[in-house]
């Protein structure tokens, strides 16, 4: 068989992405149709930049999701077909069975794996970890930043000192210290996870309690229900059979997070939360002087009600924008970890690890490193454009 021309390659890649295109068209059609009823999200579709950003982000999100369901990929991401080592894009697969896809669309890497399929699988790693880690960092930053900005004084001094302490650490040094097999063996990441992941629980508990504490009949069952579910998820997340933190027996454990992924997750949350803390603290200090806060105080509302139901909703604009930017930053951090071979297993298809593998032979074979590099670039660019669009639209009203 002849190798494919570039037009053929692009055509075939386009066909492979069919489910993604369908999903994108559906999302865009629905969003534009109902955009007047969708608040800030709907307004996003008034700005070209925001739409481009949103399209790029959703492209990778859908690629990740469908890739995890084995829909977009052409080959198994770990399967090696030895004759395909370092082959150029569009090379036909030789010496494999009938049911194998006949081409390596974007070529083979130095271990003869399909670059295209690894790129798609790598999107799933990012889509799984980055938004969730950013969300956790926001929970930690908000739960600590609100009281620091609202009360000020000693509490503020102490928390700000701790935040600056973490910020003064060079990120890569921190990663090198935290994300090593030796440190994982001591269980420190598990203990850190135990501390950091309790913040969402605290956040939700205070959020609901401050709102409904005047109606105990509603509050008590609500809190028990919500905290029960969250607590179970929390315990399943941190507890792992055979590791240092094993709180609940194995049969109650809903899911297992491999030690490597957990430590990556923990360190990314740990690095991101001080910045979020500083943003929330600054916003709180600004907003607490407003009239509606004084009105709530006159009404006799408690401090936590004011923080979570008066200040936080009014700080949402900058926080949503920063959330988008921060997912991009988290993606870059994940890539950095992969680039230095920390945390994630060496055969992992995530983009950082793939770039690191590919760069050794960069002067001869471009495609194994360039493909994940451009993927990462487009995703982070999309997130930045999305944040820009959101910022512009939220400033309009």
């Amino acid at each position, binding site marked *: 068989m002849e190798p494919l021309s570039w037009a053929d390659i692009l055509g075939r890649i386009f066909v492979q992405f069919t489910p993604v295109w369908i999903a994108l068209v559906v999302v865009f059609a629905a969003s534009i149709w109902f955009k007047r009823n969708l608040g800030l999200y709907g307004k996003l579709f008034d700005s070209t930049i925001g739409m481009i950003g949103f399209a790029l982000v959703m492209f990778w999100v859908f690629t990740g999701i469908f890739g995890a369901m084995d829909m977009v990929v052409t080959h198994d991401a770990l399967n090696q077909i030895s004759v395909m080592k370092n082959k150029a894009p569009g090379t036909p697969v030789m010496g494999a069975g009938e049911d194998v896809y006949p081409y390596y669309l974007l070529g083979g890497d130095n271990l003869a794996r399909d670059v295209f399929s690894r790129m798609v699988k790598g999107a799933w790693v990012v889509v799984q970890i980055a938004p969730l880690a950013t969300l956790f960092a926001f929970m930690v930053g908000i739960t600590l930043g609100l009281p620091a900005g609202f009360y000020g004084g000693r509490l503020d001094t102490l928390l700000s*000192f701790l935040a*600056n*302490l973490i*910020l*003064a*650490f*060079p*990120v*890569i*040094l921190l990663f*090198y*210290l*935290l994300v*090593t097999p*030796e*440190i994982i*063996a*001591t269980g*420190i990441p598990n203990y850190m996870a135990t501390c950091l992941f309790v913040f969402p629980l605290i956040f939700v508990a205070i959020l609901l309690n401050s709102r409904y504490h005047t109606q105990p009949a509603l509050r008590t069952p609500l809190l028990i229900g919500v905290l029960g579910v969250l607590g179970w998820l929390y315990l399943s997340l941190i507890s792992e059979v055979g590791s240092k933190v094993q709180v609940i027996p194995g049969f109650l454990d809903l899911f297992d997070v491999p030690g490597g992924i957990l430590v990556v997750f923990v360190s990314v949350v740990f690095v991101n939360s001080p910045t979020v803390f500083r943003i929330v603290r600054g916003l709180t200090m600004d907003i607490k002087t407003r009239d509606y806060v004084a009105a709530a105080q006159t009404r006799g509302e408690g401090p936590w009600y004011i923080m979570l139901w008066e200040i936080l909703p009014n700080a949402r604009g900058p926080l949503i924008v920063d959330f988008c930017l921060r997912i*991009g930053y988290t993606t*870059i951090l994940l*890539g*950095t970890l992969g*680039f*230095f071979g920390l945390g994630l297993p060496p055969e992992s298809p995530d983009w*950082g690890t793939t*770039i*690191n593998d*590919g*760069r050794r032979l*960069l*002067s*001869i*074979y*471009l495609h194994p*490193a*360039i493909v994940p*590099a*451009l993927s*990462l*670039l487009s995703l*982070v*660019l999309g*997130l*930045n*454009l999305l944040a*820009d669009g959101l910022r512009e639209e939220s400033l309009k009203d």
Partner: protein
Amino acid sequence: MGLFILRRLWVMILTALALTYIVFFLTNLYPNLEKLAKSQGNFRMTDAQVETYLGNRGYLQSTPLKYAQWLGVAPGWVITGTDGETRARCAAPGAAAETATTFCGILQGNWGFSTVFKDGVGSIVATRLALTGKLMFWVMVLMVPSALLLGVLAGMREGTRTDRALSTVAITTTATPEYVSGVILIAVFSSSAVGLKWFKGTATSAMENATFENFFLPVLTIALYGMGYIARMTRASMAEVMTAQYIRTARLKGVSFPNIVMKHALRNALIAPFTVIMLQFPWLLNGVVIVETLFNYKGFGWTLVQAAGNNDIELLLGVSVVSVFVVLVTQLISDIGYVYLNPRISVS
């Protein structure tokens, strides 16, 4: 002002102490020490051998005590080992234990001994830092003027096509981490596959003899990532200044547009970017580690990776002291500079 600097210095010292203690604690955890013993002694040591090896070399004392010795506030250990040999922390490599001084730590100017490079930490850090300093200097020379130019050009007429185009460039560079732009730049400009071969893909030869050919790519890679951010800050600040009352007054007086930008707007617009540029240093440190690894330029960042990868405790501590110091000093300078540039702010 003096009091402000004093207070900041106190916080700085406290931060540096806390951070080095954290590094010290993490590197002195037993699994790390075990790895160190095995890589220094031999890889087939049994657990008991590892323990005597570490005990003989003073590694099994309590962490606060070891930290105090490293600082130089506690007397260095002198241990007669199970093998009958007497070792002292303060003895020079190869010298007898009896000749050692009582205290030897950071305060006495003794930075310790690197187990990987077999050399004093002080001299390693000094030479590597000089190499990285060269890199950073050229990064600054390239990055700051181009970022300011980009930002001012985009911000002086907000919303025009020039602004849109330049802002997109700025966003794209901030979205490109060093390991991505570095890989793309090497692929385009130095690989035999594309065939341009304008620059070299490694910067190893730039350590002795930096030329445009072997040094431009690493410099450009670091500069690109920081540039976008500074440019966006400059643009925002410039756009804000251009809507100010006094600019309108100058316009109505009939001052020409270039004159308004150069004489009236620029000075006020550059206050915000100044702090941002100073605060970029910690980020640049990050970029330096990636770029030095990518281009095999054996500077400070490369040393950090080597020290951390091999759990070279004293070198790692030296590296972290220096980097923490850089971060804190730049924060201090940015605060002081901000006050100087902006008379509306007082520090009391």
